């Protein structure tokens, strides 16, 4: 998708990493504490508001820049926070109790709305555009509700004139500024951690995440809830300081302004979002009076130019110019170690795949019918057949419970029902796609680490210097030469290396059965030979069950323990290599009326 965000980061949180984080944070905090004496009162006033807006901008950056969800709706949570405070203070007056009540109301309201919106936006199979559509509808609906709220919400003029915290502007500045620094530091720690890296994986390739066993919908919903509550509290602060809650605070227009700030500053970098928000807020306050309309015009033009020419924003552009040195960070190491062997449960069945009467229809077109077969551990089953025979469709029906039209599939002895891919992965299935599917902006090590998420809960606050892989995955990584390139972004790898990386990621899941869709397409002869050796080793040594779609009959003959021939959506033959390869039907399919297939099915 977008080539933003930091590609690869230093692994490990040594002393140096903490210093790199703490030094700017402490500096920023000192500036916040010292500044009110230096800058004028007008600037103090503007910066207080700007700090609260910048907190909301950080949430936009996390959702959009990091996790790839373009949201117009963070203004709604900001507005909920402002109105939550205003309504409580107007109704109950200002007291410690009402403050506690207002905080509770804001957290619960923004959390609940985020939960609902997240549930609506992020269902399995939702398109990114749909989530953006919902984020657009949210502030529009909220503003209409506020308009129709009568005296409760103050209608179009909003709520004003309630008692609020009695603080001097300088103290407000310290509260808001330290709040901003705190949010930025926490966000930075999280985003640099192993758990935070998953957001970039979601942005790069959500499907791959699902097939690595991650519940992508749940993760996106939870992220939205956290970001919604934080934006809500920013709105709370904004209204507490300004003494007013207005419909504009919740509007779609403010939502787009937040996007403009993040885009100008630099999406996918926290500093960019904060700088963008502060710069625009301050400049607007000074210039919109002296240059009415022209200032907005300039912002619009710069915004277009940045989107076109500098997708990483001004910060991204500057960092690119200055930070070329960052490309070769010193002392970056990731230690590759063996993951502790997980004993197989003694009751685990030998038969890991069972398809009974599987059918697939597209409307009136039948692609698969009457598919019955089983596959056991220690078997390498090749699926062959001409283009359009239904091979890839069959793989899809095994890996995603929602795909098939009829029939039953069992993986590892469990019926898959209508389960989503991530749940089927939990039953012991791994799927490698036809085109290499990895996380383009992440480093090789991070790609592999995300594949291990199911087995090793990633830390929320540190990046581990150790990468533990099960033996099978480690063999692939080392044989392919990926071990020396652990810190390179995956997008720089050759086609063959990406294929190897994806296979290693799938094997890192420690699956019982692996589905491979034409894994050798586009590989050189040598790469293919090496691949075949790895596969047969996995089957023989680790007793893995491998189901592979392959067109090259010679290759199939070399590696398979069994061959299933699919023809016109049915299983035409199912037997040993000797039984199948010389069968008249296969010759007919491959040399007779069907042609030797080279292109993807």
């Amino acid at each position, binding site marked *: 998708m977008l080539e933003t965000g930091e590609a690869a980061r230093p692994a490990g949180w040594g002393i140096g990493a903490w210093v790199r984080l703490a030094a700017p944070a402490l500096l920023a905090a000192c500036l916040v504490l010292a500044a009110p004496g230096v800058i004028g009162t007008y600037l103090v006033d503007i910066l207080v508001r700007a700090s609260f807006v910048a907190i909301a901008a950080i949430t936009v950056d996390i959702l959009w820049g990091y996790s790839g969800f373009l949201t117009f709706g963070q203004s709604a949570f900001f507005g909920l926070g402002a109105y939550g405070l205003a309504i409580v203070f107007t109704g109950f007056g200002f007291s410690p109790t009402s403050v506690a009540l207002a905080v509770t109301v804001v957290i619960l309201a923004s959390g609940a709305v985020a939960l609902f919106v997240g549930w609506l936006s992020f269902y399995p199979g939702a398109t990114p*555009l*749909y989530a953006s559509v919902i984020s657009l509808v949210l502030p*529009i*609906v909220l503003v*209409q509700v506020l308009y129709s709220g009568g005296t409760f919400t103050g209608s179009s003029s909003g709520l004003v004139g309630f008692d609020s915290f009695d603080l001097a502007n300088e103290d407000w500045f310290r509260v808001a500024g330290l709040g901003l620094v705190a949010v930025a530091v926490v966000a930075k720690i999280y985003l640099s951690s192993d758990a935070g890296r998953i957001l970039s994986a979601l942005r790069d390739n959500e499907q791959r995440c699902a097939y690595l066993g991650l519940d992508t919908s749940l993760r996106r919903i939870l992220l939205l809830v956290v970001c919604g509550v934080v934006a809500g509290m920013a709105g709370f602060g904004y209204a507490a300081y300004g003494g007013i809650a207005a419909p504009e605070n919740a509007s779609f227009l403010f939502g787009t302004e937040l996007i403009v700030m993040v885009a100008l500053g630099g999406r996918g970098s926290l500093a960019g979002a904060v700088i963008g928000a502060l710069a625009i807020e301050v400049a607007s306050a000074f210039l919109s009076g002296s240059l009415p*309309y022209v200032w907005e015009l300039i912002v619009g*033009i710069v915004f277009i130019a940045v989107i*076109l020419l500098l997708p990483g924003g001004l910060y991204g552009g500057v960092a690119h110019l200055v930070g070329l040195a960052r490309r070769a960070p010193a002392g970056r190491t990731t230690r590759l170690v063996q993951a502790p062997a997980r004993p197989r449960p003694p009751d685990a069945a030998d038969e890991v795949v069972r398809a009974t009467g599987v059918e697939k229809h597209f409307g009136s077109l039948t692609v698969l019918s009457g598919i019955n077969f089983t596959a056991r551990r220690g078997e390498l089953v090749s699926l062959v057949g001409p283009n359009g025979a239904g091979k890839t469709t069959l793989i899809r029906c095994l890996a995603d419970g929602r795909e098939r039209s009829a029939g039953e599939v069992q993986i590892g002895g469990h019926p898959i029902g209508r389960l989503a891919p991530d749940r089927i992965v939990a039953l012991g299935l791994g799927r490698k796609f036809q085109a290499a599917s990895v996380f383009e902006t992440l480093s090789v090590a991070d790609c592999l680490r995300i594949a291990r998420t199911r087995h090793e809960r990633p830390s929320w606050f540190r990046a581990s210097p150790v990468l533990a892989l099960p033996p099978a995955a480690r063999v692939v990584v080392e044989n392919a030469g990926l071990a020396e390139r652990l810190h390179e972004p995956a997008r720089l790898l050759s086609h063959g290396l990406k294929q190897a990386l994806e296979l290693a990621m799938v094997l890192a899941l420690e699956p019982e059965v692996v589905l491979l869709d034409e894994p050798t397409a586009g590989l050189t002869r040598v790469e293919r030979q090496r691949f075949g050796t790895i596969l047969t080793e996995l089957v023989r040594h680790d007793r893995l069950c491998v189901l592979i779609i392959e067109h090259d009959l010679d290759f199939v003959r070399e590696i398979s323990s069994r061959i299933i021939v699919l023809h016109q959506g049915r299983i035409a033959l199912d037997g040993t290599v000797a039984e199948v390869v010389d069968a008249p039907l296969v010759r007919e399919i491959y040399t007779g009326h069907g042609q030797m297939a080279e292109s993807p099915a």
Partner: protein
Amino acid sequence: MGTLLLDILTTAAGLFIVSSGLLIVFGVMKIINFAHGAFITVGAYAALVTYWLAVPLWLSPVIGFAAGAALGAVTEGFIVRRLYRRPLDAILATWGLSIVLGQLVTLAFGRQVQFVPSPLAGTMALLGGDYSRYRLALVPAALVIGVLFTALLNGTRLGLNTRAVILNEGLAQSLGIDSTRVRFITFAIGSGLAAAAGALITPLASVDPNMGIAWLTNAFMLVMVSGGSLLTLAVSCLVLGGLQVLASTFISPILGGLTIAVVAALALRLRPAGFARA
């Protein structure tokens, strides 16, 4: 009852006129033009200028179309063309353009609300009541737009090329179709339609620099629901526009204003690809 029916019909016609340009751009280019609302505004101001210059008012949609198409051509050439591979960024860049156009209009014409008289004043008796003649005229206007477009798509070489690009751009290119040109013309026509729509709706609404934005969200939702087909867009306009009229009449105008957005969002949840292949 008669009035209600006419309300539904004319509302649907207005929505169809306003969204058709957005739909054409989305259908061919798979890009959401967030400057659509600003182009509507431009068309409305074109109608205002037409009125000031005492040019016959029925010409204002034509003048609006020309202004919008010219703007759209420039936009495609300088902005949209570079963002085909970044559809979400195309939304943002066109939104940036709509900020720019809104400010330019404000600088040129001021912020105040202005009015354009209707070329078809008065009412006519229909279905047991008097009904605004101009509102009724929106129905044939919508039909003309729909028919013209179907004819253009199905009866001309350009239309054939366009359909080829919609179905499979890579294949169309390899067959020698200049898809860049198809996109350029499509965007110009879509923008022209937006401005023509702005000119058409001005006699019913006031003119101000931000008027287009209110229309943008409804048009956007309708296009999403329709999934890219002109026929389903017409159906969506009738169904959702009808629900809007019913909600406004029987419950509250505020709820009516939300109907299209909310119903469309829920409909898309059930059917993410829209209803084009229903």
